[in-house]
C-alpha cells in the first residue's frame, strides 16, 4: 500500500531486523538493488584522523627526548592509546547494502519510503554512513542521509520518507556509503551507481473522477448500433446483391423464397478503440502541463472504454514507438498506465519516429482518438493517414495559455514561434478538412470534453457510413 501524504510517518526510522533477513523482495522491499561492501580496499584506508593522531603521538615522543622533558609525552599519550586500540580492534569490512521501495505502486502525491538494508554478515560495522541521490520527480521528506552502526550477523533497515512530486519515471542514480570503525581512524567510502527506477503513476482521482464509465457507456457503448456490420445481432434481411459475401447467405430464407437472400447484422456493441498519444517534448512548464493532461486524458479514455468491454489499444509516438494491441481487461489498463508513465521521460531534441509499423495493425473500423498538441507536422501527417484509411479519428489538442518565456526574446525566435503557430493552425485546418474531429482543450476545461469529442466522432462516422 502506498503511503498517502495525509498519513504522517515518523521523521526518521531506523529499524533493526532479525539476524536471518529474508530475501530481497520477500521483505516488503520492491525493485531492490544491491551494493557489495566486501572485498573492497576502499574500506581499508587510514583516515586523516589516524594520520593526525599517529603523527601527534610520535611528535610528542620525539620532542620529549630532544628537549629532555618527559612531561611532554603526556600530551601525546591519548593519541597513542587510541591508535593502538584502533589497530588492535580493526576488522575488515564485509557487508552489503540493498536499496528498494516499500510499495510496488506509487502515485503522484504519495508519500512512500526508500528502504536501505545494511547487512553485516560477520563483523560489526561501527559507523556506516549512507547517502542517496535523488532524481527529479521525487523529494526527500526530511533527509536521504543516515548514520548507523550494524551489529555482526544482523541487518539494519533505514527508511527514508520520500514524496512523489510528479508522475513519470524517477530514479535513485547513485548511493554513497562510508564505513569507519569506532574511533574513526580506519575506513573508507564508495560511491556506486544504482539502477533503481521508480514508476510514479497519475493520481487515482485525477484519472477516474474525470470520466465516469456510465457516461461513456451511454455515448460509446451504442454509438455504432445503427449501422450494418459483422456482429451477432440480426438487423435485417435482403436479396443477395453482387459483392455480398457468401457467408452472409441465409439458407433457410433463400430456400423458402427460391432465391439467395442474405442476413444483415448490427456490428458488435463494443467498438475497438486505439488511443494515440504524442510523446512530445516538455520544453517549459506549459508543455509539462500539456503532457500531463494528455496522459491523464488517455488513461481516462482507456479506463472508460475498458469498463464497457471495449478493447483498447495504445500507440505512443515519439522518440520511440510503443504499441499495445487492443485488448480487454484490467490487466490491459495496467499495461496502458505503465506505458503512459514512460511518456514523461522524453529526451529533448530527440529523433522522432513517424509512420510506425504499428499503424498497419490498426483495423479500419477501429476508432482512433489521438491526443497531441499538433506542434509537429509529422504527427499531423500520421493522423491524416489514419483518417485516409477510413478510420474514424478524433484529435484532442491540449492547449495552454501560460507558455513561459524567459528573458527578452530575440526577433528570430519570436518569428520562429509565430511560424510554428501558423504551421500548427494550418495542420488543424488540414485535419478538419479531412473529416477529423479536432477539439482544442484549454487549461481550465475538464476532461469531459472527451465525451463531446466522441459524440462528434459518432456523427462523422455516420457520414462515412452514409
Amino acid at each position, binding site marked *: 500500500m502506498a503511503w498517502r501524504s495525509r498519513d504522517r510517518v515518523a521523521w526518521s526510522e531506523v529499524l533493526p531486523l532479525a539476524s536471518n533477513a529474508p530475501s530481497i523482495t520477500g521483505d516488503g522491499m520492491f525493485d531492490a538493488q544491491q551494493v557489495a561492501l566486501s572485498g573492497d580496499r576502499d574500506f581499508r584506508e587510514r*583516515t586523516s584522523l589516524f594520520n593526525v*593522531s599517529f603523527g601527534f603521538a610520535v611528535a610528542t615522543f620525539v620532542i620529549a627526548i630532544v628537549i629532555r*622533558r618527559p*612531561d611532554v609525552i603526556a600530551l601525546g599519550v591519548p*593519541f597513542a*592509546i587510541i591508535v593502538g586500540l584502533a589497530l588492535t580492534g580493526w576488522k*575488515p569490512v564485509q557487508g552489503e547494502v540493498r536499496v528498494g521501495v516499500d510499495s510496488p505502486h506509487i502515485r503522484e502525491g504519495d508519500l512512500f519510503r526508500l528502504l536501505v538494508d545494511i547487512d553485516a554478515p560477520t563483523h560489526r560495522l561501527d559507523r556506516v554512513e549512507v547517502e542517496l541521490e535523488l532524481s527529479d520527480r521525487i523529494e526527500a521528506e526530511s533527509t536521504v542521509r543516515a548514520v*548507523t552502526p550494524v551489529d555482526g550477523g544482523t541487518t539494519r533497515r533505514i527508511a527514508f520518507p520520500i514524496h512523489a512530486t510528479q508522475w513519470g519515471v524517477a530514479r535513485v542514480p547513485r548511493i*554513497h556509503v562510508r564505513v569507519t570503525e*569506532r574511533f574513526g581512524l580506519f575506513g573508507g567510502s564508495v560511491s556506486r551507481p544504482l539502477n533503481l527506477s521508480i514508476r510514479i503513476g497519475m493520481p487515482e482521482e485525477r484519472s477516474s473522477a474525470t470520466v465516469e464509465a456510465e457516461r461513456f457507456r451511454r455515448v460509446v457503448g451504442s454509438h455504432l448500433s445503427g449501422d450494418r456490420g459483422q456482429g451477432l445481432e440480426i438487423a435485417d434481411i435482403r436479396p443477395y446483391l453482387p459483392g455480398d459475401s457468401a457467408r452472409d447467405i441465409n439458407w433457410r430464407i433463400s430456400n423458402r423464397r427460391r432465391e439467395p437472400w442474405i442476413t444483415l447484422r448490427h456490428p458488435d456493441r463494443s467498438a475497438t478503440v486505439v488511443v494515440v498519444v504524442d510523446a512530445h517534448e516538455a520544453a517549459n512548464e506549459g508543455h509539462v502541463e500539456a503532457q500531463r493532461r494528455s496522459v491523464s486524458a488517455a488513461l481516462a479514455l482507456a479506463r472508460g472504454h475498458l469498463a464497457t468491454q471495449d478493447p483498447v489499444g495504445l500507440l505512443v509516438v515519439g522518440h520511440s514507438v510503443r504499441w499495445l494491441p487492443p485488448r480487454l481487461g484490467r490487466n490491459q489498463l495496467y499495461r496502458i498506465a505503465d506505458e503512459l508513465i514512460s511518456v514523461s521521460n522524453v529526451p529533448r531534441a530527440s529523433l522522432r519516429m513517424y509512420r510506425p509499423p504499428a499503424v498497419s495493425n490498426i483495423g479500419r473500423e477501429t476508432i482512433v482518438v489521438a491526443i497531441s498538441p499538433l506542434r509537429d507536422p509529422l504527427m499531423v501527417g500520421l493522423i491524416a493517414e489514419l483518417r485516409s484509411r477510413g478510420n474514424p479519428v478524433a484529435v484532442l489538442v491540449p492547449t495552454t495559455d501560460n507558455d513561459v518565456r524567459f528573458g527578452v526574446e530575440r526577433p528570430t525566435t519570436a518569428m520562429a514561434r509565430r511560424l510554428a503557430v501558423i504551421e500548427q493552425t494550418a495542420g488543424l485546418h488540414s485535419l478538419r478538412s479531412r473529416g477529423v474531429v479536432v477539439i482544442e482543450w484549454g487549461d481550465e476545461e475538464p476532461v469531459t470534453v472527451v465525451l463531446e469529442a466522441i459524440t462528434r466522432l459518432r456523427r462523422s462516422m455516420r457520414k462515412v457510413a452514409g
Partner: protein
Amino acid sequence: MADRGGRVLPAGRFLMTWHLDRLARVATGALVLAALLVGATAYLVLAYSQAERVLGALLVGALIVAIGGVVGSTTTAAFGLVVFGFVTTVATPGPIVMAVAGLAGFVALMLIDLSIVLRRAPLIDREIWTDTAATIGVAIAAGAVFFAIGWVVSSIRTWQVLLVAVGFAAVGACVRVVSARHRAAVSDAVANRHT
C-alpha cells in the same frame, strides 16, 4: 584538506552555502562542544603556566582548531592542536595539565570528526551517541591509567632505571602485538577478497 564531506554537494550550491547549512542544522552542537573544550583547556594551561604572555598564542591555536571544525577539516584542526601543544609545552604547566590538554585535544578532534559525519542532518541511530561517549570514556580512562603508571614509575627512584627499561620493553611488546594483530586482519581481508 582531508574530508570536506561534500561528495554529494547539490548542483548549483556554493561551498559557503554548504558550510552554513552544516553549521546551522546539525554539526553546531559538536563544534560548540569542541570549541568550549579547547577554550577551557587554554584557560587551564594559562592558570598553571610558568611562562609569561602565552595567552595570545594559545588563542591562536584554539582559533585554528575552531576554523578546522567549521570547514570540516581534521587536518586543519590538528594543525591548531600542534600550535596549542607547542605553546603548552612552552608554558610548562606540569605533567597533569599536559595530560589533560592532550586528552582534551584528542576529544576535540573526535568531536570535529563527528561533526563532519553528521553533515546534512542525517538520520542518526541512538547507538552512535552511546558509541561516541564510550569511546571518549575509554580514551579518558586509558589515558588516566597510563599516566598514573608513568607517574608512579617516575616517582620510584631506586628502581627507576630498571623500570624505565622494562617500560620501554613493554611498549615495544605492545606495538609488536598490535602490529601482528593488524597484519593478520589485513591478510584475512585480502584472502577473503581473492576468494
